């Protein structure tokens, strides 16, 4: 260590070797950590170029699918009686071509997107919303455990198809039927997910502190719990959307989906399937849109889940 000891070459002003004033505020000043949960989450989320591209694309598709029906004059249900308008290949006039009844597939695709999105949003809202409330009640009442776990087992162990087909048979096919049949099952999966999360933060010291202060349950939920799991709520909702759209297509495929005249992505894919060998574009183009939407939402949801984990905040 001798080598590190330097001799002072130049003399210092003796006035410097007197008492300096003590500044309390200066001593308390810390390196204010520049960490903010949301800023870091968003930064991590948008670090990937793919995510930026997909989010922009989804925003554009969403916007378009709600604007198109308002600005376009093409009627997606208009059937042509003239056979030369049937099964047209994609062209400038009909970017996605026409189907066997001469309806414009491009226009139908936007209407379908809108309807499928609306259905998916409703399902996501009810699944995550009901699931969260049920999960919170479940997480706070351990007595519910035996009942809820059995309910969860029963509902998730019956293959969803059987269940959905049954429900769809009982009721007439409509948006409402589809909504009920999907929403009646999805919430319990979400409830269990949120129950586990809430269980892990329920006994965190700050929640116990709130209980010691006599904070009512409702305020603990709105001020302590929900802000902690809001990123999970967003993630679950994002992942619910592709799942709902996919289920709708599947139900259409087994024949218990929407009524034939409803324009949804599921119906379009199924109708295109009939003429797939002759006119493959009638199925492939709606399917491509469908794939793009579901894959994009899955990736966005998963990337957001990663980004919202503080361990990934660098």
């Amino acid at each position, binding site marked *: 260590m001798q080598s590190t000891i330097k001799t002072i070459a130049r003399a210092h002003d003796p006035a410097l070797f007197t008492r300096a004033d003590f500044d309390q505020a200066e001593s308390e000043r810390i390196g204010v950590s520049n960490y903010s*949960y949301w800023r870091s989450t968003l930064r991590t989320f948008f670090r990937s170029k793919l995510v930026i591209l997909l989010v922009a694309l989804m925003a554009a598709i969403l916007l378009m699918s709600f604007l198109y029906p308002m600005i376009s004059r093409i009627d997606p249900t208009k059937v042509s009686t003239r056979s030369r308008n049937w099964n047209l290949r994609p062209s400038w006039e009909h970017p996605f071509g026409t189907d066997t009844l001469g309806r414009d597939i491009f226009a139908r695709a936007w209407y379908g997107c809108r309807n499928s999105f609306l259905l998916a949003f409703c399902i996501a809202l009810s699944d995550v919303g009901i699931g969260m409330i049920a999960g919170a009640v479940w997480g706070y009442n351990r007595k519910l455990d035996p009942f809820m776990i059995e309910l969860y087992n029963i509902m998730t162990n019956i293959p969803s198809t059987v269940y959905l087909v049954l429900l769809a048979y009982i009721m007439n096919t409509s948006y409402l039927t589809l909504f009920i049949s999907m929403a009646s099952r999805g919430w319990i999966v979400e409830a269990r997910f949120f129950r586990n999360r809430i269980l892990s933060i329920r006994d965190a*010291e700050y929640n116990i*502190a709130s209980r010691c202060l006599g904070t009512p349950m409702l305020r603990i939920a709105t001020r302590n719990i929900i*802000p*902690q799991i809001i990123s999970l709520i967003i993630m679950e909702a994002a992942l619910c959307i592709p799942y709902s759209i996919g289920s709708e297509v599947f139900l259409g495929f087994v024949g218990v989906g929407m009524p034939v005249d409803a324009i949804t992505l599921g119906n379009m894919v199924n109708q295109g399937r009939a003429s797939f060998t002759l006119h493959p574009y009638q199925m492939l183009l709606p399917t491509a849109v469908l794939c793009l939407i579901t894959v994009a939402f899955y990736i966005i949801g998963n990337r957001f889940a990663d980004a919202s984990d503080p361990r990934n905040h*660098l």
Partner: protein
Amino acid sequence: MNEHKGPLLLSAKDVVIKFNLRGQELTAIRGASLDVYQGETVAIVGESGSGKSVFTKSFIGMLDQNGRVESGSLLFHGEDMTKYSAEAQWLKVRGKKIAMVFQDPMTSLNPVRVIGEQIAEVIMWHFHKSHDEAKKETVELLRKVGIEDPEQRYRQYPGEFSGGMRQRAVIACAIACRPEILICDEPTTALDVTVQAQVLNLIKDLQREMKMSVVFITHDLGVVANVADWVAVMYAGKIIEYGEAGEIFHQPEHPYTKALLRSLPQLGVKGHDLYAIQGTPPSLFKEIRGDAFAPRNMDAMKIDFEEEPPAFSVSPTHWAKTWLLAPEAEAYRQDLARRDAEASSAQTPSAPFDYGKAEPLLSVKNLSVHFKLGSSRVKAVDGVSFDIYKGETLSLVGESGSGKTTIGRAVMSIYSGNVEGGIYFKGRKINQKLSKKDRGKLRMEMQMIFQDPMASLNDRAKVDYIISEGLYNFHLFENEGDRLAKVEKMLREVGLTSDFMTRFPHEFSGGQRQRIGIARSLIMNPDFVVADEPISALDVSIRAQVINLLNRLKQERGLTYLFIAHDLSAVRFISDRIAVIYRGRLVELAACEELFSRPLHPYTKALLSAAPYPDPDVEKNKVIHIYRPEAGDAATAREWIEAFPFHFVLATREEAEEYRRENN
């Protein structure tokens, strides 16, 4: 002249380590140098964020991805390791020549593989031995680190080991390759005091036997006094003082080292403020000018803010980076020494708490708390009874899992249904169904301060809301202006300014967060406060601040504390009486000085002997008592006996007689 025992092994010179953190550059190590000689223990002391872990991690090339060694050199046997580019080069050193033991043993062990195989694997990998040979060697190693019945233990999973045993296994793993240097990064911080003492002894024995060098990182000066030959004090990414352990403890020169040693609660005089270091450690994001400690140093000189002090040597083995040692500062230095001497001679301890007139505020009668663990029932607290008198501080001391926190939470009515016995506050039973109004009143009268300042504040709420939470719940304010005024007053009382109100908790340091937590509880104007290890998660330099604050508030507001702690050394300064708890049962209860001068129960003796004391001379000669409880019914046959006036102990009648005989 070389005052070291062996040749130089590792020499770190002017190491600068930088991290990229969320777009900003942080200089964690600002030019630190350290030499490690064969067969010696050098302890690096510093608070969290001082860079002691980062510095030693760079010795084995294990910096996090966003960090890098910017400049300086790391010479190991003359080879500069900063030049290493490939992982393969590091692999020749890491684990084999320089091994590391971390704080939490669970992070270094694979929970789904048996312990023996994990160690054997290291031997097979590094020495290319057959599985049978490696296994034989592993059993030998386990025996060496003091694990009984190593053949059996070989086949067990980490989950079947206790915390201390796990750390022993990790040490066995680290010394499997007979490293030349063993880096111990706070290896005992997560352990109980009694286990800590044993693990420290193990490390010392192994070092002597294997002629290893040990680099010991810790924030606990008591531990340093126990293990270190040499001490390096680190502050804000620099080593500011270095010397032999005795020199650092008996003749510290840097103001930071001096302040650290003076602020230890072990050295406090009852009834007086502890010497406390002001403020919080500096930000390493900004460039630090002059002496990094100057803003917190009450006696800083003007030059400390202007220019960084060079290392001045005190003796051939001791140097410090402080301007106080410059010849120009001689006059100022003498002035300081004179004032220190005056200040320390003036203090006489205050009179002990008078129990003659005291009335009990809280009575706990035969309290039991059980938890369901799967199908079995675990009794966390078993028939505990004690009174707390108005105005006193009763400390509850025990190791982790002893049920001390459970008692605190039961008193605060956090549990429901699993509490048996009676808790009486101001003469009324409170562990029963109370009307909403009564419960609310109770919530105002009893408050709790929590252990972990990081976990006890909701980090999605602003400080303003956190502190006013209780006010909102009981509408303890007239209007918005009144509420803000109350919050502001409370903040001032805990030494924070009102502009902190609009910030989020993550913008504060640990000590500041703990003070916010204290403000949150005390704004309710309670009579009684449960303080659940309020200082154990804090840095050494911050602890004294919080202890002083708690003491001051107690005097100003006439508070009564139930103080929960795991370490006897820290509670001596604050408590009037101490209760020692072991596995859910109280084993001894006595007035503070009485307990220290006349411990009766063997567990209390073990705790007292294990608590590290910050003086190398004391530590080197201490004898550790190990408490081995007898199994079975013998423990339950004991009763709560007053062996001496106001000195209770859990013992059989014969034992109590013996205690009386021994101590008279």
